[in-house]
Each structure stands twice: as structure tokens, then as C-alpha cells.
């Protein structure tokens, strides 16, 4: 663990600070966020560990960690942090940076879900559960999960059979492009940026 | 003005006063008159031309007058404001002077004009005058005339200047004050200027540069305006006395307007109501303070 003199822009903490305005150095490692984190038992890096590694610029290990993908974004850590470090927003930003640098290694299912979800919105502007489940199954390989539930869902009229497209689909596509382009020109690193929203994200 | 003449000669003959300060016919309109004997009282007149503010003769700086004994002075409503100012600042005591209040229906802006009062020739200060019958006086003469015609000439000129940008305003006043030769007539004629030695005569330090260049003139006008805040009786004599014709009453008018807007106060003729610039309220506005 090398100790950087100050959170210069080159460090990951500096990058997080530039993008979110949050300063990871304000965290004094009290562990209150990790105490309340519902996923603490299932992850190796809890929120305060993430902040610790940020303070010591452990870039590779952090951006390639699986833990940052096991975050439920339930904001408990942010609500209870004594120093208002907002770990939830910082972990959001780490995921985004990891994706942009191609360093992200989310568990297969979670990557599949996010990709399927965002593909859905790009295609029809609204979520079409059936489409999402199909697309998720193909990407995750979990072909038989919840198959038994299909009849129940149908019987209760909970499964729309056709996607409801919106008129402003062009606008949604423009939003996705703008957001991915926005990321590319503001990311300092040079590696090719991949974002699950765009077509080329399949093999991220 | 028979009533005024009879009253004056009565006062003089009974020795109650040794001089009656009033108005008499003059080469250009009326001029101040100092009547010492009952016989001369027939020279006293009062009409729309009586613009001068005779309260200025009560100021302690005119010590020579005081030596002449107790004066009686003819006071219009607006002049009563100045007298109240002098009383408020203990420059004269009430029983040192006899005040002959005269009911006034407005005066000309220029004493040489004549004919009925109209929107063009009436003095700015007469608009909406609430002191046509002066209070706090010993005697009261003349009948209550009708409302003087209203004019918003000065108010609109002030608004015109306010509408300008700072640079334009600066150029406007620079061009006006350029003509100031620092004769200080505006100070001599002002009833409220009671200082033994004026601040602009103070040399160590000389806060107000005395040479007649624009920087000194601006400093002097700012100082005079601030000194009159909450005290100026708006008699307009400073502007009328200025040989260079600088619209000084606009500056004093603006300051009076600011004092009225902020502290809901107008220098009135009641000597017991003090000027707001000397005390404070906890909840004064401070929107301009960061």
C-alpha cells in the first residue's frame, strides 16, 4: 500500500473527488456504514474498506473487485455516515469508472441483468418484463430460474404480453448517446470506454 | 398684510421684541427686512414671493444679531421645520425668540415671478405641503389659503438620474459640480449649518479638499448631504443661493427620500421628535450587509 502525498488528480480518489465533489479523506474509518450494510456478510470489501482503499489509491484491486457490484444502492451507509462522505455515491462512481476503464468484473448474473435492463429501455423506452427475463436468461445462462413461476404470473395477469413502445424513442436513444459520449470526454484515462448501454457492451 | 404689520408694531412698541425679521419689497421680488421701530412696520409684506427661509437668522453663527436683543421672526410652515431643528439641537432656546407663524398657500420657485401660482412657477417643496398652517408658533396671521398646485418636477428629475447607469450619473454630477467654486453660499444660507468651524475648514486633517476642483466639490457635497440626513427642512435655499446654478436640492431631496423610505421619518416642525440618525432599532433593515 503506497501512501500518496495528497489526493492529486492522478489518484483514483482525486478522480472521484473531481466527478462527485466528495472527498474520500473525510472518512475516519468508524465502520458505521459497514455496520448497517445489508450486503456486508456477502462481500469482502465493505463500504469502509472501499473508502480505505480509495484513501490509499488501491486502484486496480478496487476497480476490479466484485464487491462494488454487490451493492444494493439502499443508501443506508450514506444516511448514517457521521462525516457525510456519501459512500453510496462514491461506489456508484467507482462502478462507472471501472466500466469506463474496462476493469469492471461484475458477477455474470449482475452484468447480465444491468445489460438486459438497459437494452430494454433503449429498445422500447419502457421495461417489458417478459423481454427483460428472456434477455437476462440468455446473458446469464440461468435458463431455468423462476420458470415455475410463469403460469402464476400469467394467471394473475401480471405479465404484459407485448412491449408498450413510447413515441419519444428517438429522444431516449439521444439520451443514451449523450450520456455515453459525456463519459468518454470526461474520463481522463485513455482505455476504450465500454458502457453496457451501448451495443458493444456484450463482452464487457 | 395689515394683520402682520399691526402685530409687529404692537410687539415692538410693547418692547417684547427689539427687532422683527420679515419680508419687504426688494429690487428682485421680496427680500428679508429688519424692522426695529413700529413706524417701519408698514414695509412688511408677505405673498407668494416670500421664498427666503428667515430661520437662518436665528443661527448662533450670526452672533451680531443676537446682541440686538430678542427677535421676532416671520415663519412659514416649511421654515418652522428649520426652527424646530435649531431647537432640537439646543442652538436657540424657545423663549429667546418670538415666532410669528403665517398661513401660506405656497411660494414661487423664482421670487421674481408673479401672477397666480401654477404648476410651472410653484416651488418644488410646496407640493402636498402639510404645514400650510405652522404649529408650535407664538402668533398666527393670515387666512388659510387653498392647496398649492402640485408639481412632480423634482421627483421625476431625481427618478431620471436614478434611472441612469453609475457612469452616466457620475458624468452628470461631474459636469454639474465642475462649476462649483466652493464659495460655500449653500452652507451660509442653510439654517441647519450651525458649526462654529465647518469640517471643510479643518486643516489637520483636511478631510474635504478646499481647492475648487471637482474632487473637493464632490467630497463637500457628500459631506453636506450626510450632515443634513434627517435634519434638512427642504427649504431649497441652497440651490437658489448657488451662483453656479448646481441642482443641489436634487441631492438633498434624494437623501430626504432615503431617510423617509428607510426610517419612515421626515424632519417635522415638532422639536421633540429626534432625527433617526442618532439612535437605532434592533430590527433595522440590513439587506445591503453580507
Amino acid at each position, binding site marked *: 500500500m503506497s501512501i500518496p502525498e495528497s489526493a492529486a488528480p492522478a489518484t483514483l480518489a482525486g478522480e472521484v473527488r473531481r466527478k462527485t465533489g466528495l472527498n474520500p479523506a473525510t472518512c475516519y474509518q468508524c465502520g458505521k456504514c459497514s455496520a448497517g450494510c445489508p450486503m456486508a456478510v456477502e462481500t469482502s470489501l465493505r463500504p469502509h474498506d472501499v473508502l480505505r482503499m480509495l484513501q490509499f489509491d488501491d486502484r486496480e484491486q478496487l476497480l476490479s473487485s466484485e464487491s462494488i457490484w454487490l451493492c444494493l444502492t439502499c443508501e443506508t451507509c450514506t444516511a448514517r455516515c457521521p462525516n457525510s462522505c456519501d459512500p453510496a455515491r462514491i461506489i456508484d462512481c467507482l462502478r462507472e469508472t471501472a466500466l469506463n476503464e474496462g476493469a469492471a468484473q461484475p458477477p455474470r448474473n449482475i452484468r447480465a441483468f444491468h445489460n438486459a435492463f438497459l437494452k430494454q429501455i433503449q429498445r422500447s423506452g419502457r421495461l417489458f418484463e417478459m423481454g427483460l427475463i428472456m434477455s437476462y436468461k440468455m446473458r446469464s445462462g440461468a435458463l431455468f430460474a423462476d420458470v415455475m413461476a410463469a403460469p402464476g404470473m400469467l394467471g394473475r395477469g401480471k405479465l404484459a404480453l407485448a412491449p408498450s413502445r413510447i413515441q419519444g424513442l428517438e429522444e431516449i436513444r439521444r439520451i443514451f448517446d449523450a450520456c455515453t459520449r459525456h463519459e468518454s470526454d470526461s474520463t481522463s484515462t485513455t482505455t476504450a470506454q465500454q458502457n453496457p448501454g451501448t451495443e458493444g457492451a456484450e463482452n464487457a | 398684510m395689515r394683520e402682520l404689520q399691526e402685530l409687529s408694531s404692537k410687539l415692538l412698541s410693547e418692547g417684547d421684541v427689539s427687532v422683527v425679521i420679515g419680508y419687504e419689497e426688494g429690487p428682485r421680488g421680496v427680500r428679508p427686512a429688519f424692522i426695529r421701530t413700529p413706524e417701519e412696520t408698514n414695509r412688511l409684506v408677505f405673498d407668494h414671493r416670500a421664498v427666503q427661509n428667515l430661520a437662518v437668522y436665528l443661527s448662533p453663527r450670526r452672533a451680531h444679531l443676537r446682541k440686538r436683543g430678542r427677535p421676532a421672526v416671520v415663519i412659514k410652515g416649511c421654515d418652522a421645520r428649520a426652527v424646530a431643528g435649531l431647537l432640537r439641537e439646543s442652538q436657540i432656546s424657545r423663549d429667546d425668540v418670538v415666532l410669528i407663524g403665517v398661513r401660506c398657500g405656497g411660494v414661487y420657485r423664482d421670487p421674481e415671478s408673479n401672477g397666480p401660482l401654477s404648476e410651472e412657477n410653484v416651488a418644488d417643496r410646496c407640493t402636498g405641503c402639510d404645514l400650510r398652517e405652522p404649529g408650535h408658533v407664538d402668533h398666527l396671521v393670515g387666512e388659510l389659503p387653498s392647496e398649492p398646485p402640485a408639481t412632480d418636477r423634482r421627483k421625476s428629475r431625481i427618478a431620471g438620474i436614478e434611472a441612469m447607469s453609475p457612469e452616466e450619473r457620475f458624468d452628470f454630477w461631474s459636469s454639474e459640480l465642475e462649476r462649483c467654486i466652493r464659495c460655500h453660499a449653500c452652507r451660509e444660507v442653510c439654517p441647519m449649518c450651525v458649526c462654529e468651524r465647518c469640517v471643510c475648514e479643518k486643516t489637520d486633517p483636511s478631510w474635504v479638499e478646499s481647492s475648487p476642483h471637482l474632487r473637493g466639490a464632490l467630497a463637500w457635497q457628500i459631506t453636506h448631504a450626510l450632515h443634513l440626513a434627517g435634519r434638512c427642512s427642504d427649504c431649497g435655499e441652497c440651490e437658489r443661493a448657488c451662483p453656479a446654478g448646481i441642482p443641489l436640492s436634487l441631492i438633498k431631496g434624494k*437623501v430626504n427620500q432615503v431617510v423617509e423610505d428607510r426610517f419612515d421619518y421626515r424632519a417635522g416642525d415638532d422639536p421633540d421628535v429626534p432625527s433617526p440618525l442618532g439612535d437605532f432599532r434592533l430590527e433595522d433593515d440590513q439587506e445591503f*450587509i453580507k
Partner: protein
Amino acid sequence: MNEATAARPSSEGEAFEPRIVAFVCNWCTYTGADLAGTSRIQMAPNVRIVRLPCTGRIDPLFVVKAFERGADGVIVSGCHPGDCHYTAGNYHARRRFAVFRETLSFLGIDLDRLTFSWVSASEGRKWSEIVNETTARVRELGPFTSYRDLVDEG
């Protein structure tokens, strides 16, 4: 303007650096400025502080003289209402400066060159903000030579 040490290189083409005088009260703002010092809060070097016992002692004539002597901006600052060491100095000052400010504006002085503030002894950071903000604002307005050079046109 003391020509010997004219620190303002505006004429030689370098960026214009405004000269700002600050009249501050000794008990609150001056101590607040000291606190900014002990906390090493960096700020613009354009402000020269003149210490006075109370805002009640800050005379509008000082401000006029400062502009006459070539100041591009003036700051007047003291204790928050209620905190005055002499109980009422800042209340009197508040009324005096309310009238003075509008008179100056009527005569054509740009009020952006004047900053009034309350800064307490524990508000070092607020003082640095007042200094930086006024410096930036006055730098944008440019030099105020028009007032100091009135003598030439006279």
C-alpha cells in the same frame, strides 16, 4: 496616491490588480482576520486592513478619502448586531451607512466597489470569502481612476 511605491502596474500592460482598503472593527472582524491567518486560509493579497475600535468609529469620510486616494474598492466590516463590544456601535453604523451608500450611488459611485459585512471573531473563513469575492468583483470593474483623477478635469 503615493507615487513612490505605486504597486499598481495597470499602466504597464500587466493584469490589473485592484487596491482595496478594509476598515474593520478591532474586536470581531480584525480578530476573525487573525483567525483566518492562524488557520492559514489563503486569500487575495489586494486588501489593506485599517484597524478601528468599532464600526461606530468608521466615518463615511474615510471611505470618500480612500476613493479619493485611489482605492478601487472599500470593505467595511464589523461585529454582528448584538455582539458589539461597545453594545451599539454597529447599530449606529448600520443606519449611517444605509444613507451614505445610497447617496454615493446617487452621485454615480458603483456600489459594487463597496462591501459591507458582519464578520465575527470565529468567522475566519467568511472573512477570506469576503476578501476574495470583493477582489474578484472589483478586478472585473477595473481601476477606479475616474474618482482619483477628478482633479485634472477640475
